[in-house]
Structures are given as C-alpha cells and as structure tokens.
C-alpha cells in the first residue's frame, strides 16, 4: 500500500480547443513528496494542473493518470476534489456575493455524508486558525470570494482554501507569482505547516522562480517544455534555470 504513488502520469497527451498541448508527459509523485515544475510560458503547466483538477475543456487523448490507485480521468472535478486533489489557481475566479466563509462551509459540507452537518463551531475555529496562520485579517472571511481582491490576496486566499480542505495532493499553479516577499514567506510557512500536519501530503509546485523553492524545499524539480517533461533532477535544476534560462531546452529534446 505505502508505495502506491499519490499520482502517476504516464505518456499523457491532452488537448484543449483541438490543439494538442500535452505531448507524452510522465510524472510520478509519492506520498509526502514535493515536486516543482518549471517551464517557459505556454509550455502547458497550467494545462496539466487544470486537467488534473478536472476542467471539462481539457481532454486527455491518450496515456493514463492514476491517483491513489484510481483512474483520475474517470472522475468529475468535484469528485476529484473530495478525494483530495486540490488546485490553487493561477488565476482565481471571482464569485460576487459569496463570502469565503460561506463558500468554505459549503465545501466542507460537501465532504460529509448526506445526514451529517458541518459543526459550525469547529468550522469557525479551523477558519480562524488557518487565517491566523496566513496572517489574514478576520474580516477577510466575510469578503466575497476573490471579488475585488488584490493579486496577492487572491493567492493567499487560494492557500487558505487548501489549508481548510486538507488535500492529499496540492497543485499550486504559480501561487508565488504576485506575492511580495513577506507574503511569500507567510504562504510558504502555511504550506510547510500543512505538511507537518499531514506528512503524506504531496505537493506539485508550478513556478517561474527559484525563490519559493528556498522556502518550500522540493525533492524533485522538473523542466517542462512543449507539453513534456524534458529534464528532472534535484533543487539544483532550479538554480541552473534561474541562471541560464530555458535556452538549452529550446530545441525539442529528442521529441
């Protein structure tokens, strides 16, 4: 049991709007591992993240995605989330009139059996606790989801949501972009606290910057170019990319 990977992607091809974006992608995350994916704009990182989260516009055409031993591609987006796959969006969506607290309560409720009700006191305690962790003002919980948020507030809000919903696999799509140095540290700390609470939590960090990886240390760093992983290694890969950019990968590697 223990060595079944949290996520196993084999030779995945996927398209959106009839354009093939992912072209033979392989990736495996084991329990408790942190992986980072870096890659040039348009290489398909968000496509991978949204596909994993179950966005209906992204269609896998071949290959397989297995999550905790189950075929992830068979599940609807909401089912995946309830099973523990959670995506922190690169561009979080605004939901006017729906407060964060209300939204999260509904999301927590969605994880309970039909005859169970969210314990409002426990929920409130958790929310206050996670908001303190993320150094957010308590009034934030009453603001409509992402509506009128600054870029940084949106990203922090994404991590708040994940911290409340206890994922097994956290997909962080450029959560670090748009955060100032202090906010980056706070968000990184929150991710590390989540891992302390659940050492099995697997994290996939999509980023353009090595910076975040100084705070949340990855076990593996992958380079994604044109819809495939072209290089994998340890944290040193990120350092090298930071210095040299993607030039060496411009020529499709053997594909």
């Amino acid at each position, binding site marked *: 049991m223990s060595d079944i990977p949290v996520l196993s992607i084999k030779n995945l091809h996927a398209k959106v709007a009839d354009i093939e974006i992912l072209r033979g992608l392989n990736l495996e995350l084991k329990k408790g591992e942190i992986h980072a994916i870096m890659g040039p704009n348009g290489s398909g990182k968000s496509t991978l993240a949204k596909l994993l*989260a179950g966005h209906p516009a992204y269609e896998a055409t071949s290959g397989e995605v297995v999550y905790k031993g189950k075929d992830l591609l068979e599940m609807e987006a*909401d089912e995946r*989330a309830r099973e523990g796959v*959670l995506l922190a*969006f690169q561009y979080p969506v605004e939901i006017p009139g729906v407060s964060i607290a209300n939204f999260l309560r509904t*999301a927590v409720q*969605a994880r309970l059996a039909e005859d169970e009700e969210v314990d409002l006191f426990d929920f409130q305690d958790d929310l206050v606790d996670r908001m303190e962790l993320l150094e957010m003002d308590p009034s934030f919980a009453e603001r409509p989801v992402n509506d009128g948020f600054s870029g940084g507030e949106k990203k922090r809000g994404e991590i708040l949501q994940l911290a409340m919903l206890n994922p097994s696999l956290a997909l962080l799509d450029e959560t670090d972009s748009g955060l100032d140095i202090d906010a980056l540290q706070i968000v990184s700390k929150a991710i590390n606290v989540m891992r302390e609470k659940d050492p099995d939590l697997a994290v996939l960090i999509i980023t353009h910057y090595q910076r975040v990886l100084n705070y949340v240390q990855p076990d593996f760093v992958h380079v994604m170019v044109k819809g495939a992983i072209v290089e994998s290694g340890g944290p040193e890969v990120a350092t090298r990319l930071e210095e040299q950019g993607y030039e060496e990968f411009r020529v499709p590697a053997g594909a």
Partner: protein
Amino acid sequence: MEGVTPALNQEAVKLLAANEPDWLRERRLHAWSVYERTPLPTTRLEEWRYTDLSRTLELDSLGLPPREAPRSLAVDRYPERLRNAMEKDWDASGHLVEMDGSVVHTDLLDDLRRQGVVLTSLQEAVETHEEFLREHLATEVLPPETGKFQALNAALWTDGILLIVPKGVQVELPARISRWTSEAGRAFFSRTLIVAEEGSRVSYVDECLSDDFDRQSFVSTGVEILARDGAQVQYVSLQRMGRGAFHLSQQRTLALRDATLDTLNVSLGASVARVDLNAQLLGAGANSDMLGLYFAGDDQHFDHNTRQDHIAPNTRSDLLYKGALEGRSRTVFRGIIKVYEGAQRTDAYQTNRNLILSDHARADSLPNLEIAADDVRCSHGATVGQLDEEVLFYLMSRGLDRRQAERLVVRGFLGEVLAKFPLGGVVAKVSEIIEQRLGAD
C-alpha cells in the same frame, strides 16, 4: 362587453357596497365604470408585450369570495404553510392576517397604539376611519384611472389593510402582514393603504401565500403608499403563492419633500406574477431605493413593470432588480425612468440582471429612459447571462457538485440585492425563504 362576466359585474360591486357609505359606493361604481370602459390590455401595448392576459388570466371563469367571510380565526386553525411562514415574525410592531380576502386578525403594540398608529383592516376602517379613507382611498395615490386592473381592484376590494403613522412617530419594528389564499376558481381583491405622516418612520412586510391549485386563483393587490415630508417608509412584498395562482400586485408610491420610500419586491411563487410599481418622487429631496429579486422555476411567468417618475428637483431613485431562471420559466423586466421638465439635479439609476440556469428559460429585459431636464445623472443597464463555466469549475474544484455550485452562485447573485436592504430582520427572513427555494427541487 369585454371583461364583464357573470361573477365580476356591476351587481357584484353594488352588493359589496350595500352597507357602505354613499361616497364609497359611488367610488366603487366609478372605478367599475373606468374598468368597463378601459380595454383589456393586449400584447400590442408596450407594457404588456410579453404577458398575454387573454391567454393567462381566466377572469371569466372566476367567482368572487363568499360574502359572509369570517372576521376572526384562531391561530391554531391557520393552514400549516401560513403558520410556518409566520413562525419567525414575532419581531414586529404589529401583525395582520388576511385569509381569502378578509382580515381575520390584527394586533399592534400598545405603545404604538397610544402614539396614534393605526393598523387595521379596511373593512373596519370604513367604520373607524371613514374620513381618512374618503380622503385617501383610491384617490391621489392609486386612482382607478391608473389602469384597468387598478380600477377593478378599486371597485371590488373585499378587505385590505390600513396603516397610518402619525407625524413624527418612529415605528422601530416592521408591521408584518400575512395573506393566505386557499380557494381556487376565485378572484380576490385586496387593498393596502399606507400613510406615513411628516417625519414618521415605518416598515411594512407583506407576505402573500397560498395553496397549490389545479385551477386558477387570481389575487389582485392594490398598494398605495404616501410618505409625507421627511417620512421614511420601507415596503416589502414577499410573493410566495402556490402554483395555479395568478398574482397581480399594483403598487404606487408617492414620496413628498425629503421623504424616503423604499420598496423590495420578492417574487418566488405563483404561476403568473405581475408587479406594477410606480415610484413618484413628488417632493424635492425625495429618495426611493427600489429593489427586486425573483427566482422563477418551471412554467412560472414573472413580469415586473417599474416606473420611476422624477417630478421634483433634487430627487434620487435607484433601482436594482435581479432574477434567476430555471426550468421552462419566463421573466420580463420593463422599467422606465422618466425625468420631468424642471426635475433638475435628478439622480436616477436602473439595473436589471438575469441569470439563466436552463436552456428552456427566457428573460426579457427592457430598460428605458425618458428625460426632459438637462441637469441630471441617469443610467440604466440590463444583462441576461448564463452561468459562467469557469466559475462553476472553480467551485467544483473545491468539491461542490454542479448543483451545489449553481446554487451558491445564484445565492451570491441574488444576495447582492439583499445586501442593499437596510432592515436586517427582514433580510434574514428573505434569505431563509430563498434558501428554502434553492433547496427545493
């Protein structure tokens, strides 16, 4: 003759007026004559373009309620749906219950009674406040000449509500009115007259409920509200009737100098619901916030027809109507802002937004401006949109199923209207009703 039926006829008017004072009998008969000479509105008229009365209203087959209706009824004999609706209404300055066209209960806080506040049935008011009715009932606010059905209501009302708030009196808690209809095959006519004297303040919540019917039941509600100088009035209509009901609510509000006259119309029930609301800003500095929300489901047809008349300078009105539609439902919003010559420094806004949740629903939105003054700030906007798939995906990516996600979006969408309404207790009740509606299939 058009519109004249065996049950709804001049004889019926005379019968109703048999024991009433002469002026009232004449007033009813006059209204009847206006009704008779006014043609039935057809879809050729802009205001009735999308609501075809010849196909939706079955006046010919409806009778009037029985004449000897009970004048009182114990609470434990109220229908369950009505009792449930009233359960949380204890936070009130007074209550009034109308059943099948006649008032069966009234109460009012002693303190308010001592200050001269009047909350009573119209039938009783004919005896106790005859002079007041003679001056105000169906005269300046909602005269029969306003339209065919306003006239019919003025001719055939069987009972209704009179609320008077004397000069300077502040009524903290809302007056709660509950109206119940249990009979199919009948036409009910009820009238509401609210007069807030100078500098007074009051809020009023009218909740209209009924059984579900397999034949049509028609409820006509005529509402006249007068806010004198500096008075503040909040009027709320919660329409939660059952299927088979046709509800016609015709409201006209007059705001005099520096008065505030806000309305909130919530349409959830009935098979056909039509609201005509005319806000008249008659005195300088008058202000009206006009809020509306509706949630239409299968085979429901809602038509909201509003009018903001800016007659005096320095007046302000702000209208926001939002609706969600599912199933095979149909809604119409038609609004007009009219700024009269001389109504300088008018601020008038009008927004209608519709959220369509089904391929079979249709919303029409027809905003309109007519401006005869030059120093004004006016805007109007209308949208008819569907649920955004990106929004749904975002919510589902947190574990909400599609239906829960849709409901949450609708809740947020409609919630914007309630967030603007100043009475917390009323908002709580409306939110709860919307929750029930959202939870129902």
